[in-house]
């Protein structure tokens, strides 16, 4: 049994009350080469066997390092990029079976918010036009001016914003416009890809709060993609951790934080800086070796084995672990690691060099105050 794809088939699982259900999703980008005749010489396995359920009204967070396939997964769900295998079921409908007009109608229900609000807004269109465009495109009648005013109000912008252009707004305000556009058609699901990572720290919280407020108000379901684990933990009910095209752990947000089980999650969590010296001085860190391997040539077996501090001689390098439940943890907490029980019980310990213990005797710093006003 080597390098099998993803988890048990869909039928084996209790049908979650999901709004969105993804099974065995793959997106492989062809790598072509050749000067006269292009041949496919390989593929980038950007998404390689992902199962994911998003319950109605919930927020699912997706985290992972740059290049692990988060955006591609989000885009494949909305069919902004064609999956090469797998199914995406939205509200009972198989999205991959839809074509043309049907797909276009379905798109009303699924919207996206992007990282860089400026790149996704046409600089020559004023806000009135940006926000009424989806209404026009979907043939929605009525008073578009009134609807735009309403949308602006919902996202906390003054009605006067309608006559201004994107460049006249700050980053946070532009992200509000991006969000207003996403909710214009009253969608059910919003995929937000790094919605706050381009924003200043003090503005991030405004946008996070806005997203939460809109969810309560409009009953939205979210997939929030971000590399910032603290943001994701804050906003999501369930967090999925992605590594090199696959999910390695998925759990309710609090469980994931309290008991991260996968070695990658443990390392990721221990790497996130916390703005509190007391905590920073007493934390143990698990440092990873090296970088994310190339998704064009992913390691066999467990994709994480080239960097895993808990790697074992058997199974890790030749058998791909699937997401599964772990005894003693809620069913919603699922992990893709062969050795998770042994790691949790302490029978398998991390490689010595990988663990950085806190300084046992931190210097009592700041014996001198920084120079006061000169």
């Amino acid at each position, binding site marked *: 049994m080597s390098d099998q794809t993803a988890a048990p088939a869909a039928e084996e699982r209790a049908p979650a009350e999901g709004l969105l259900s993804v099974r065995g999703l793959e997106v492989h980008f062809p790598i072509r080469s050749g000067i006269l005749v292009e041949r496919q010489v390989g593929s980038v396995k950007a998404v390689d066997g992902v199962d994911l359920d998003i319950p109605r009204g919930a927020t699912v967070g997706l985290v992972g390092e740059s290049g692990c396939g988060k955006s591609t997964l989000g885009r494949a769900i909305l069919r902004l990029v064609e999956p090469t295998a797998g199914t995406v079921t939205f509200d009972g409908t198989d999205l991959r079976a839809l074509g043309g007009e049907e797909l276009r109608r379905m798109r009303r229900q699924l919207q996206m918010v992007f990282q860089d609000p400026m790149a996704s807004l046409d600089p020559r269109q004023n806000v009135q036009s940006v926000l009424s465009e989806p209404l026009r495109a979907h043939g929605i009648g009525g008073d578009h001016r009134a609807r735009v005013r309403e949308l602006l109000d919902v996202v906390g912008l003054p009605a006067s914003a309608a006559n201004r252009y994107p460049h006249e707004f700050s980053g946070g305000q532009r992200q509000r416009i991006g969000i207003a556009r996403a909710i214009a058609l009253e969608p059910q699901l919003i995929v937000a890809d790094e919605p706050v990572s381009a924003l200043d720290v*003090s503005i991030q*919280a405004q946008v996070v709060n806005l997203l939460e407020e809109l969810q309560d108000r409009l009953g939205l379901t979210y997939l929030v993609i971000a590399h910032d684990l603290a943001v994701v933990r*804050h906003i999501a009910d369930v967090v999925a951790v992605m590594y090199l095209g696959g999910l390695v752990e998925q759990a309710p947000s609090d469980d994931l934080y309290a008991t991260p089980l996968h070695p990658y999650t443990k390392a990721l969590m221990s790497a*996130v800086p*916390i703005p509190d010296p007391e905590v920073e001085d007493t934390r143990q860190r698990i440092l990873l070796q*090296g970088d994310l391997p190339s998704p064009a040539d992913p390691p066999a077996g467990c994709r994480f084995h080239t960097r895993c501090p808990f790697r074992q001689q058997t199974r890790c390098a030749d058998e791909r672990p699937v997401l599964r439940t772990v005894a003693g943890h809620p069913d919603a907490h699922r992990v893709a690691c062969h050795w998770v029980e042994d790691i949790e019980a302490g029978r398998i310990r991390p490689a010595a060099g990988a663990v950085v213990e806190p300084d046992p005797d931190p210097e009592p710093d700041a014996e001198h*105050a*920084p*120079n*006061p006003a000169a």
Partner: protein
Amino acid sequence: MTNSEPLLDVRDLSVTFTRKGGPTVRAVDGVSFTVRPGETVGLVGESGSGKSVTSLAVMGLLPRRGVQVGGQVLFDGDDLLTLPRDRMRDIRGRDIAMVFQDPMSSLNPVVPIGVQVTEVLERHQELKGEAARSAAAELLSRVGIPDPNRRLKEYPHQLSGGMRQRALIAMALACRPRLLIADEPTTALDVTIQAQIIELLKELVQDTGASLVMITHDLGIVAGLCDNVHVMYSGRVVESAGRRELFAQPRHPYTGGLLGSVPRLDAPRGAPLHPIPGSPTDVLRWDHGCAFAPRCQNRVDACLDGPPPLEAYAGRSLRCLNPLTESEEVSV
């Protein structure tokens, strides 16, 4: 390290950009701070607060046209701002080194890494040929680059972002600087790689006794790394404190606001975030009052009378007329 003379003493530094036809921009407006030998100092603040311009001024790397620099930058007693260019060039590279956010911008894309590292060694350590080459390999392995002999032959684009940043740190260390200035060295990197780099910087500071100025917008990095912290807003330092004092009880409303608006990984879920209203672009000019006033919840009338002075307050320096009190401590 206590009570030793400062290695770097920045006094009342100001940097003004003048563009023909455009308004003048006072990017740095009377910034003072010191760095003692072996000390790690953090400069934090949002985009545009003047962190990079401060470090460029210290390094003498600002463009000469359209820029006015005032104040003093004393390094070991010499004012770097008035030093002849060639002496400044000597100091830069030998005594002070800098690591930037984007390593690509400081590496030559068409020259192998090995050549770039050995060049620095040849220039500043007077090593030649094979000796320089093996010293370069040793440096790369010191900063955790596996298989250094192979990497030395590679070009920058063949290295990952994290490895490039390590190579740059290796080059910065090649001359055993007494002061390393790191401007957002991990901002473009993944958090697991960031942890590797921060750990590396910590070790290096400990092993070589160098001082470190860490520029970042990430309060988490500062909390784990810096002895003293200077919070900047709109070109001025608004609060300076030891990291424990600062995080235990921020006194400036802006510092408190920053701490209240970042989600903490270890905070109970559902703990509300308290954003700072408005945006960093809603600033008042300092000569009209406190630049933070348009966004400040603690504002009093006097805040609009002119720039609040930086004064000693509660074991720190603070630029605020109505500081946060203990009861207003940010809830997390």
